[in-house]
């Protein structure tokens, strides 16, 4: 039966299959390159994940201490190191940690890691971000263990806290492309302004009635500004360009510079935000409810 086909036929078939494979591979490589590039940009909007870097230290290797009401926790190594970082984790495992707070071994992450917020990140953004994380140069560095006086904080207290106070979001495939919707998406699920600028009680529960209204003794003990459009205590007298400029340069309308954690996230990532995204965030911030809450 096979004899009816000439050698030329098989040669052509082989050539077509090879060409198809090559084109497919090239396309796949191209897609992966685009994905990583997009992921790098999202990483920047996420503030370069600065929490995972000790200031002036090696980027992304974790170890940064975060005092919490019940002890001290340490940000993890998110480089591609196989033993101490994410190198041996599958994409699904990274996604699960980032959006549900569960490690491959089933261990719970404390909600200091903003997985509730990331649960609302668009599917395609999450895919891109994970692709980029995999390109972070592997650096071996063990993360110190959680120090706490509460027994079973991870396996027992954390699920209870999440049940009572957790706020997970559903995730669309694609993020909003522009405007106030995109601004809201970035503020809530990527840049995570809510995480620092909304005050929390002693249990770490965000007070949504003071949404983005600033916090005394916020993360790492810093005072965090009120970024609602309240004219007296917030940024109500800032223009959208003023807000965008701050995100991109760290400079306020009076030419003063931000310091502390905000300066870190700008330097680690926000400064590489596209102006359109900075303006989208600005437009969202100018659209929310003004709340009087004096911090400084």
């Amino acid at each position, binding site marked *: 039966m096979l004899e009816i086909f000439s050698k030329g036929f098989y040669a052509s078939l082989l050539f077509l299959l090879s060409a198809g494979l090559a084109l497919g591979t090239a396309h796949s490589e191209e897609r992966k390159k685009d994905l990583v590039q997009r992921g790098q940009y999202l990483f920047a909007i996420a503030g370069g994940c600065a929490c995972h870097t000790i200031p002036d230290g090696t980027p992304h290797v974790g170890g940064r201490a975060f005092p919490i009401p019940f002890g001290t926790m340490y940000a993890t190594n998110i480089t591609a190191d196989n033993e101490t970082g994410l190198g041996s984790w599958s994409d699904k495992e990274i996604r699960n940690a980032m959006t549900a707070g569960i490690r491959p071994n089933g261990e719970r992450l404390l909600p200091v890691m903003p997985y509730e917020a990331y649960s609302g990140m668009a599917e395609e953004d999450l895919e891109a971000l994970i692709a980029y994380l995999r390109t972070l140069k592997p650096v071996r560095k063990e993360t110190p263990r959680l120090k706490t006086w509460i027994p079973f904080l991870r396996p027992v207290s954390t699920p209870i806290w999440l049940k009572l106070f957790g706020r997970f979001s559903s995730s669309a495939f694609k993020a909003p492309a522009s405007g106030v919707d995109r601004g809201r998406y970035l503020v809530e699920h990527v840049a995570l302004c809510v995480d620092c600028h909304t005050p929390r009680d002693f249990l770490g529960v965000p007070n949504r009635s003071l949404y983005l209204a600033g916090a005394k003794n916020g993360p790492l*003990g*810093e*005072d965090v500004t009120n970024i609602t459009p309240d004219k007296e205590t917030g940024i109500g007298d800032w223009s959208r360009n003023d807000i965008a400029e701050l995100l991109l340069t760290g*400079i306020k*309308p*009076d*030419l*003063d*510079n931000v*310091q*502390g954690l905000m300066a870190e996230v700008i330097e680690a990532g926000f400064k590489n935000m596209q102006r359109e995204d900075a303006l989208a965030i600005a437009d969202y911030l100018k659209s929310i409810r003004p709340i009087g809450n004096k911090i400084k």
Partner: protein
Amino acid sequence: MGQHKFLWACLIGLSAFFVSTQLFAQADVIEKRQKLMKGQSAAAKAIKGAVEAKDYTTIETKAKELMGSSEKISDHFPKGSTAGKTKAKAEIWDKWDDYGQKAKNLRKAASELADAAKSGDGAAVDVKVKALSAACKGCHEPFRAEKYSGE
């Protein structure tokens, strides 16, 4: 014996009086320099607004105001004036010469901005406003704490 007690009481009273006057003096200088900085903030904000409006007269006026206030900065930071609500870091006095130079840098940046505004060159004004902001940051980063002392 009664005389000794009286003398001790006088000594303690005088010491307390002396310490309290020093504390009040420090509180006073801290308040004055915070007022100076707020004034500089207001001038800088006016400059930023005037850039958008291309109001070069205001830019020149406010830049000259900053030149004047920058010359007063060092006088408002007497050695060890940290007792009170202040963001001044100890490095100011550890690196006093460097700190003084930062104030001079601010004056220079303000002076160049005033000149650019006087010339009416919009592009030059933009460059000099950025330089002015960099001069502010150049001092704030090493010498200003994130939080007030005692918080």
